[in-house]
């Protein structure tokens, strides 16, 4: 198992560790619920060093061929994403964030479980040079509705980044205005010692540590998908209603995607909410039912401390895509009525 280079530092902060995608990472510090609320009402930091980070060099037209969104029209310093690498059947190889450094250089953030698969896939489908930076640098996100009450404001619009920049006087390899919680925030890649010194300073100003459990409940409120749970190679972006592609260009999987648009799809991703007092979490694989008839399955679910109810997402047969209506979810042999809601569930 891999482990975050910040493990000792975070252990002293009281982190509880657990395994995620082959990495030993902080799952929570005190309680994921408090950490979740900190992001929605204040600010918190996350260690994301498990995420695969790759540097790609070569001809832009080759990158264009691999990625579902348009790359050529973006300017250097722009983040293109979320976007995806697709199979020729338009299933997700991975959903990624792509950073355009120049016409010849890009950075990619992959899901931790897909890092090695993506490296191989890029090499098999292009002559691009791929360098794995994952083990050289840590990745930290600072997220929160009130982040600028805690940090010196940075001069960077949303989804823009800078390389070899400074953050509060310290050298960071990459600094971006981005995140995965639905709140304002930054992400940075740096050496572990720079990260520790920045985090120590943030903590002294009242920014709390948050673990991957809070990250999971936050992304579910927004309706963001997690690879391996909500999407994989058997699901295409239309079924996931994950608009990570552009039809203005050619790329691997486009033909199958266009076919799906023309013919329609059999299943669609939907969000759901349980009644407030019902504290049952339908796990991945639980069945959606209407009048006892199975019409789909749950892929993610969690208790949202912000909405104070159980929420989640899954896929239902497209004929039963009854947004705003209700259906049952079966948990341990019992049926529970849930309301189908569109994303973000936070509304």
């Amino acid at each position, binding site marked *: 198992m891999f482990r975050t280079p910040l493990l000792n530092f975070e252990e002293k902060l009281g982190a509880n560790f657990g395994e995620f995608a082959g990495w030993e990472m902080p799952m*929570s510090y005190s*309680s994921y*619920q408090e950490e979740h609320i900190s992001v929605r009402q204040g600010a918190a930091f996350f260690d994301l060093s498990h995420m695969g980070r790759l540097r790609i060099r070569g001809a832009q037209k080759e990158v264009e061929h691999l990625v579902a969104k348009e790359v050529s029209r973006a300017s250097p310093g722009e983040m293109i994403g979320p976007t995806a690498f697709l199979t020729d059947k338009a299933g997700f190889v991975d959903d990624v964030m792509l950073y355009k450094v120049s016409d010849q250089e890009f950075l990619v953030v992959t899901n931790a479980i897909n890092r090695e698969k993506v490296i191989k896939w890029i090499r098999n489908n292009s002559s691009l040079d791929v360098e794995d930076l994952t083990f050289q640098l840590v990745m930290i996100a600072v997220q929160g509705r009130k982040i600028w009450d805690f940090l010196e404001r940075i001069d960077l619009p949303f989804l823009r980044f800078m390389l070899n920049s400074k953050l509060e006087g310290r050298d960071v390899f990459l600094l971006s205005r981005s995140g995965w919680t639905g709140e304002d925030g930054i992400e940075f890649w740096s050496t572990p010692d720079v990260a520790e010194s920045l985090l120590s300073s943030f903590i002294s100003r009242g920014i709390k540590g948050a673990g991957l*459990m809070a990250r*999971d409940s936050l992304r579910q409120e927004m309706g963001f998908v997690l690879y391996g749970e909500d999407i994989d190679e058997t699901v295409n972006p239309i079924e996931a209603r994950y608009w990570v592609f552009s039809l203005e260009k050619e790329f691997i999987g486009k033909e199958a995607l266009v076919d799906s648009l023309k013919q329609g799809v059999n299943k669609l991703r939907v969000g759901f909410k349980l009644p407030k*007092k019902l*504290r*049952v979490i339908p796990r991945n694989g639980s069945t959606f039912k209407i009048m006892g008839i199975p019409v789909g399955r749950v892929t993610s679910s969690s208790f949202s401390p912000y909405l104070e109810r*159980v929420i989640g997402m899954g896929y239902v047969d497209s004929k039963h895509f009854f947004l705003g209506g209700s259906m049952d979810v079966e948990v341990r042999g019992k049926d529970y009525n849930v309301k189908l809601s569109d994303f973000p569930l936070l509304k």
Partner: protein
Amino acid sequence: MLRDLLYTESDEWVRIEGNVATVGITDYAQKKLRDIVGVDLPKLGTKVRIGESLAVVESVKAAADIFSPLSGEVVEVNQELTSTPELLNKDPYGKGWIFKLRVSNQDETKKLLTAEQYSDKIRGEQ
């Protein structure tokens, strides 16, 4: 871990007072489950045999069955857990108790673990 309690292999604790057994989950169990967000409590009057599943504790990580440590009948459940399931994390041996049983066979208590045996079991898992 408390000296005066008995324990199970499946991480429940039992406090015996006369013919009534109070049951909860151990501190070790709540730490493994992490943030507990819900509890499915048994109905009053449910008759149960030793080792049967009687309640379910929901954490974000997993749903865990709570097995009855003894045979008997449910005479009380901790309704407070319905609105504040986090009591299971905060006070597993006190306010986080789950249900009380009228014990039908006192001999079964011999099958339970002492505090010492239970701490050996935990050490074996770590």
